[in-house]
């Protein structure tokens, strides 16, 4: 089982490497495309008070006890769109009882069909791994690959907003 995971990851990093060396243009202008819809204010405070009660992540997430208020219900936080040279990567997390229960990639580079194909494969794997690594209890992450760079950046900002 473990070996399968590792070889998958190796394949993906190979693909990501290819992608990262591909010199296609980056489109998006330098103006920060900051996510809409979530608490994107400057100097946001932490501690769970800055929740953005955006509609909870519909897809696949279990038992999204939609609705409001209580600390046991799922809440979503949308990370900033991290600009990579291939385009923006943005994730949305669902938090329940201070645990990430779902991570949805709401935006990823998709200039051409090949990017879409690669990302539709690579990003769910990143999601799964990020969820399993959350027990690492880390304050910050150093270094990253191309896709995970944008991914980790956006994820970090969502985690910061959630005050986890």
């Amino acid at each position: 089982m473990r070996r399968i995971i590792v070889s998958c990851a190796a394949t993906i990093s190979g693909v990501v490497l290819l992608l990262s060396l591909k010199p296609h243009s980056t489109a998006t202008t330098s103006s920060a495309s900051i996510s809409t819809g979530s608490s994107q204010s400057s100097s946001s405070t932490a501690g769970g008070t800055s929740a953005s009660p955006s509609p909870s992540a519909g897809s696949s997430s279990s038992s999204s006890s939609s609705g409001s208020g209580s600390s046991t219900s799922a809440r979503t936080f949308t990370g900033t769109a991290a600009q990579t040279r291939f385009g923006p990567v943005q994730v949305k997390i669902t938090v329940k009882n201070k645990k990430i229960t779902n991570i949805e990639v709401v935006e990823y580079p998709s200039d051409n069909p090949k990017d879409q194909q690669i990302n539709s494969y690579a990003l769910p794997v990143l999601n799964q791994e990020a969820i399993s690594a959350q027990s690492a209890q880390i304050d910050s992450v150093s270094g990253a690959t191309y896709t995970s760079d944008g991914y980790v950046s956006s994820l970090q900002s969502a985690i910061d907003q959630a005050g986890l």
Partner: protein
Amino acid sequence: MTGTPLRHVEHVMGTVFSFDIRDAGSGARRDAVQGALRRAVDRLHRIDELFSPYREDSQISRLDRGELALDACAPEVDRVLRACAEAARETGGWFSDRPAGRLDPCGYVKGWSVEEASRLLREAGSVRHSISGGGDVQTVGGPAPEQPWRIGIAHPLQPGMLTAVVAGQDIAVATSGTAERGAHILDPHTGRPATALASLTVVGAGITRADVWATAGFAMGPDCLTRIEAVDGLDALAVLPDGSRRWTSGFPAYAAPARPTPDPADWRSALPALSAPGRPTP
């Protein structure tokens, strides 16, 4: 009383800067720290305006095109270019502010801008904060008294996974990797992309210097560990393309102790190998 942490995320310089201030306090003190945070964010945008090689109108771009004289630039442009020259000397020519021919001091500016932001917070009295600029992390103090910051090192070959966790107070951690910057980190001697390492993480006191050495050492390849071993105050962890790891003699002191985990598939399974005695084998 330190109050609730003050966190802020800013998109600038083509990446995400993340602030985590643990001693923001409350009342007037919080206002002061918040003011410093605003100044730090403004400073980052100002640095981007001056130094981005991706902006046609930045002073660096205009300087490179010969449209602007150095003495007409902002004073920090000259300071940064001098610091780049010093970094090139210190690394034996393995750091360059013209990695691809045109003027591009990004290898220095990112780390330096994190340190600048941290300086502004310290001037407002903060002694417990962590700032990450696109994966370059500067910590000041600890998250709480007697507690270390914990910084995950992204696994270069398994996206989303960690290869180690570094812990400490007042430490800076910079990582260079193939996939993120494969087209960026060029061997200044051959002009070709460096590929001998999958990633190099450098730990030190200041992020500017750690970042310079992560960039230069990545171009050097595995031999960089011997060089970094000889540099006071720096340690490093290298991941080779085959996934094996090497480190300087001081690095294990930063490796965070393993914690019990219900999930056998996560990163901690990698730690026993790290805590075993190991010297770089150049």
